[in-house]
């Protein structure tokens, strides 16, 4: 029995709602029973552009949250930034539109078996999967603190209901238009030193993940990060999405971030080798 993407299915999924939230779109998509298999950290791959599209590749999106008990069947929530042609197309799909979705894909955040203290760090739409994760951690009895950052206020995604599962939430914007002015990574060092943080969960731009790694490397803090590399297939067959990593055995390999990720142990990633020849 193959262990890779064991629960992945390709399904025709209806858009339940599409709402603008700041610079993002919050999409609720009906994925039926597949919702039961989605774990925080998993992502979906969606066809974009319709039947006569010139875009031949799927786009990957982190699953923000799933809700299995909705009337119409299980739903998932995506937070999409209308960036290029594929994401813009997705953001233009209204209620009732049918999407071709492969779900769930990739690794999930590891959940501690003990009720430890954890820190969640999100950059831009990277906060999306953290709220679903916070719920799970909260249910495990963990203390959950969250830091969110972005260049400007409209790029902060922090829904009201999401805040219920976190013990504290601090927001940083580079232009100071919301929360504190500065970077989301600025306070981490002090937090590690002052508090008894066991795990940092992070999701956001690669530069942010790498910066967090440089703070946790060599410490006892585990860094679980959700990486984002260009992906052609999302299911492990194209080898475009690789990241240089070193296993605990010292062996260096180019791991596929779609099946050995997106959630990876930050310490295994050779951050300074990303985009360089090995």
């Amino acid at each position, binding site marked *: 029995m*193959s262990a890779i993407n064991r629960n992945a299915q390709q399904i025709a999924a209806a858009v339940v709602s599409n709402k603008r939230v700041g610079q993002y779109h919050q999409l609720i998509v009906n994925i039926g029973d597949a919702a039961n298999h989605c774990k925080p950290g998993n992502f979906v791959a969606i066809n974009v552009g319709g039947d006569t599209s010139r*875009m031949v590749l799927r786009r990957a999106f982190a699953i923000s949250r799933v809700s299995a008990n909705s009337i119409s069947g299980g739903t998932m929530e995506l937070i999409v930034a209308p960036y290029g042609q594929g994401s813009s197309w997705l953001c233009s799909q209204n209620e009732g539109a049918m999407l071709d979705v492969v779900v769930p894909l990739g690794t999930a955040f590891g959940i501690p078996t003990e009720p430890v203290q954890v820190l969640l760090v999100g950059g831009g739409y990277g906060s999306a999967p953290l709220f679903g994760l916070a719920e799970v951690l909260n249910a495990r009895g963990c203390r959950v603190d969250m830091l969110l950052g972005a260049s400007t206020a409209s790029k902060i995604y922090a829904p009201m209901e999401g805040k219920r599962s976190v013990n504290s939430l601090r927001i940083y914007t580079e232009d100071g238009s919301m929360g504190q002015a500065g970077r989301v990574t600025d306070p981490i060092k002090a937090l590690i030193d002052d508090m008894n943080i066991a795990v940092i969960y992070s999701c956001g731009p690669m530069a942010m993940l790498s910066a967090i790694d440089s703070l946790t490397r060599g410490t006892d803090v585990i860094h679980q990060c959700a990486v984002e*590399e260009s992906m052609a297939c999302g299911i492990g067959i194209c080898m*475009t999405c690789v990241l240089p990593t070193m296993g605990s055995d010292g062996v260096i390999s180019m791991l596929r971030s779609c099946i050995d990720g997106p959630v990876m142990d930050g310490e295994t990633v050779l951050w300074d080798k990303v985009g360089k020849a090995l």
Partner: protein
Amino acid sequence: MSSVDLSTTLGNAWFPAPIFTASGCASSGRELSQFFELHSIGGVVTKSVMSKARHGRPTPRMAETPSGMLNSIGLQGPGIDAFLEKDIPFLLEKKARIIVSIAGETVEEYSTLARKLRGVSGISAIEVNISCPNVENRGLVFACDPEASRRVIDGVRRTIGGELPIIAKLSPDVTDLVHIAKGVVEAGADALALINTVLGMVINVETMRPQLANKTGGLSGPAIRPIAVRAIYQVHAALPKVPILGMGGVASGRDAFEMIIAGASGVSVGTASFGNPNAIPVIQNELRDLLAAKGFSSLREAIGYAHRIEVSDGE
């Protein structure tokens, strides 16, 4: 389900169905076996394996293009020994037909790979990917050099002996494809795989630098299908007895049918699987229905059918 005989042959290898994975577009097979049964399709063409393990090229390794994509993986892989140890047993367990793709940097490396494969049972054919830079000749791609292409195939043929069919995979980036095709067939290829990717480049207008770390990459997907169909048609016209494994932008049963009537005996599907993990079985079913709708009772009758004008010209 319509009752069309879908079986086909490439050299002396028989396959119950004509749709294959394309080399480098199905990894080890494990990843797709989550979506469909590997034994239900023609076969799995494995990613090109080299003698040693390789990390491949740095990222970014891809760029999407209009109706296509560029890739530059640089033949990342575990090397032939690990491949034989891990991947072949898995595919055999899944009852998949296996075409092993090999790649080398020297004529000698190809022969070495062939030697390792000689004794392995359960392999249907060897695909020889000669679209690799020849380190002994200024990095000139083997497939772009008629003489080097011949020597690679000749070396593999001598090593492997007469049994296992050799499929030579050619690059479209040449002035005279038919000339190269004739050369490798003379050197011992039983069949031809047409086409490998077309050399291309995308420049990222944000960074104002080539998007791929390797600058250039291989263009694949529907964008290149007209080039692939032309290549298959031309080579089939020149070498009507040499079976062709066609590929390049096939994304539907219609596209596979187009290649078959152009002269292909089988069709590999690469990029389409990235857009749709179920592409291969879907294409195979659509092809079956299309053959039936067109009145063909077997795939074989359709091979090269678009050439029939020339044939009747002689009457």
